[in-house]
């Protein structure tokens, strides 16, 4: 968790802030102890005028993560970006939304380019300049996966951040290996007896990253800023390969209201569909518990990509299968307070 609770204990002897425990800021604690995002001084690494859709979870997640990394690295940070929404909406030539050194090469090689940047900083005697690589789920779990695994096994000094919006969104919402079962995409249409994406495919890269025994792996969400910033800060305290996988809802691809982005991210956590945890050197060290458990239907019904599950008033048996996936996460990761 963030720094806040510690100061509360010392100053107030009270571990309770009604209006600051979950909000972005907290006027009752000192400026230095607040979230980066609460500060007027935040770096706004990803600034205004970008062309992300209204309510874009990825634009939000990227600013959250990179601003926190910037603070941790004293603004000595270079970002390497895979092809994807984030690259497209921030850098339509000749404009850029990045207020930091930023590179883009190919769809699949962000991790490899970042390895090179980190090596260049090392050999040119600038070890204080840190490197992040970032990409969407397509550039990470599909196309760039080989380079990513290589970066992990070599333990290169790079923090790789994946913004997972569960599909290839800027090219017209195609399925990726992070697209969940039953979700409708352009390539998994709502046709046939089992419309939408099939069950039993895809992969959860954070688990694969943990299997590399790298120093730090975490999942995070735009719905829990305190947790996200703490994880980025923690990741930046390590040398070597680090991986953070952030759940970023996509109003366009998920068929959701632009104002529901954070609510959806929150429900993904509270249903158990998206487990939030961190692991160090191959072992899970911390799990974010569910605060107000919700059934998966609360999450699914807000998204048109799942609308076919609720057609005709007859409950689709696949809703129960999705619930079973959530229940399994809850059991596997221990997401509910015993």
């Amino acid at each position: 968790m963030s720094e806040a609770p510690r100061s509360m204990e010392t100053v107030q002897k009270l571990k309770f802030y009604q209006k600051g425990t979950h909000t972005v800021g907290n006027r009752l604690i000192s400026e230095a102890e607040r979230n980066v995002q609460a500060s007027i001084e935040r770096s706004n690494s990803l600034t205004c005028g970008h062309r992300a859709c209204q309510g874009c979870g990825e634009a939000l997640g990227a600013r959250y993560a990179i601003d926190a990394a910037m603070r941790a690295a004293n603004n000595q940070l270079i970002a390497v970006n895979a092809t994807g929404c984030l690259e497209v909406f921030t850098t339509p030539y000749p404009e850029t939304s990045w207020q930091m050194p930023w590179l883009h090469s190919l769809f699949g090689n962000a991790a490899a380019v970042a390895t090179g940047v980190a090596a260049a900083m090392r050999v040119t005697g600038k070890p204080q300049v840190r490197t992040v690589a970032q990409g969407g789920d397509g550039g990470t779990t599909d196309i760039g996966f080989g380079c990513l695994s290589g970066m992990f096994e070599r333990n290169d000094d790079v923090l790789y951040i994946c913004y997972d919006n569960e599909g290839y969104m800027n090219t017209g919402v195609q399925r990726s290996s992070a697209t969940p079962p039953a979700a409708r995409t352009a390539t998994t249409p709502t046709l046939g007896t089992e419309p939408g994406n099939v069950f039993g495919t895809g992969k959860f890269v954070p688990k694969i990253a943990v299997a590399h025994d790298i120093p730090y792996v975490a999942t995070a969400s735009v719905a829990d800023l305190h947790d996200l910033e703490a994880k980025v800060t923690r990741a930046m305290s390590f040398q070597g390969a680090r991986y953070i996988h952030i759940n970023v809802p996509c109003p366009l691809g998920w068929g959701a209201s632009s104002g529901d982005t954070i609510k959806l991210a929150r429900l993904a956590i509270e249903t158990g569909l998206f487990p939030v945890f961190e692991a160090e050197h191959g072992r899970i060290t911390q799990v974010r518990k569910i605060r107000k458990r919700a059934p998966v239907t609360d999450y699914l019904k807000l998204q048109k990509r799942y609308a076919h599950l609720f057609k005709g008033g007859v409950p689709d048996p696949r809703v129960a299968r999705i619930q079973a996936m959530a229940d399994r996460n809850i059991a596997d990761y221990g997401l509910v307070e015993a």
Partner: protein
Amino acid sequence: MAVKHPYAITLDVGTSRVNHTGSWRTLRPEYVDRLPPCNAACPAGEDIQGWLSHAEAGDYEQAFRALTANNPLPAIMGRVCYHPCEGACNRAQIDEAVGINAVERFLGDLAIEKGWGFAAPDKDTGKKVLVVGAGPAGLSAAYHLRRLGHAVTIREAGPLAGGMMRFGIPKYRLPRRIIDAEVARITAMGVTLTLNDKVDDIEKAMTAGGFDAAFLAVGAHIAKHAYIPAAGAAKVLDAVSLLRSMEGEEPPLLGRKVVVYGGGNTALDVARTAKRLGAEEAIIVYRRTREKMPAHDFELEEALDEGISMKWLSTIKNVDGGVMQIEKMKLDDKGFPQPTGEYETLEADSLVLALGQDVDLSLLDKCPGIEIENGVVKVAPNMMTGRQGVFAGGDMAPSERTVTVAVGHGKKAARHIDAYLRGADTPSTEKHGLASFDRLNTWYYEDAPATVRPMITAARRINTFDEVVGGLDETNALYEARRCLSCGNCFECDNCYGVCPDNAVIKLGPGNRFRIDYDYCKGCGLCAAECPCGAIDMVPEQL
């Protein structure tokens, strides 16, 4: 100007800030302020949310200042107010209402302990106002009028200030030192208070004293009587004189078994007082049901805890010595009690009638233009009676008779008296729309139970006139204040500033809230959806 570019590059790289994405917007976020339900429900017009926000930051003196901007009697209020604010509190729909009343009492007690006073006004207006009665309405009006720079004289008929707070509310609910301290704070501002100084004729009093206006705030000290045929050595008293006699040297003698007739808070006060005076049994006889009882339910609960028994749907037909005849009643379709012809008898050493109270209005006999209806004075919306410059409030004016309502009357009347004296228009009282529960995003509030006031055990309570409900200490007062949700008004949580994917919310720094940068706001609605307290509306953009 020609700039040399690298090979295959023709344009200068620039920031995306040139791209004004605000043009995409169809809905625009706007910051609003809404009226919190606690404030809306407060008869004294307190800005509860406002003073709680100072308390939750640990700035208790500022909280006291903010509180007393509307109500000068927080320590009294924190004990006797029926806290309709808590009944309206949105937090009750999450777990339990914020213990506003307890925090108010904490602040009031702290102010007395620390000796925080009220500043005298910067300059005097030269206008003189007479306040008749030093009860809650009179004290409140005097305080506000003095703050506005007027010279105020309170004339009190009784031997001590406080009115019904002193002569009607038992000590176990309101210790007398609290009244004394809060009255002293008001007189220290330069308010003149004269005791044992009954006003018999308001016209004469105004002329003699050269007053420009008057506020009448005479309490309802006269007990209503029902005709109950009594024979033998029946001991029948009325509630007002009983409670008043509690202020004297000798406690009244009631005997071992006391019957109280009535269903209001006064009936409960009398029954609980009787128990404390040593009665083994105190029985309240009331003609209707618990649901129809005008007394507040929490007071009934406290009374039942203390062993008071209730006789519902019963009227007293006559008293003969120590025996009274009770007729059973039943409610008709309209909820009115109707006699059934069934009788029973009840033995008791004394009977106390708590059937309501009237105001002594004789001071108005020679005052032209004043209209009296149902035993109270008719007042205009600005609290003025039919006589120019004479205002009335508290028990004298038609309203619910509680200390808090009286304090509210005093404040309201003071505002209008001030306007009258300055020849100004009636001050505007336009209010924001209500901050309803459905506007909140309750995810952001931490779960927390109410701090339960330490209750003296019922067994101990009935033997003493010590206070029944204990106060909060600093840690739990702070905790309780922090349970406030700040419904409808920005508390600078930074959520809008944080959750905007377009950096289109500008943070203006502590106390200055935020501003939307409409050049870049795409109108996604995340700020409004994630605002905990419902202080952002999304309104259609005029295209």
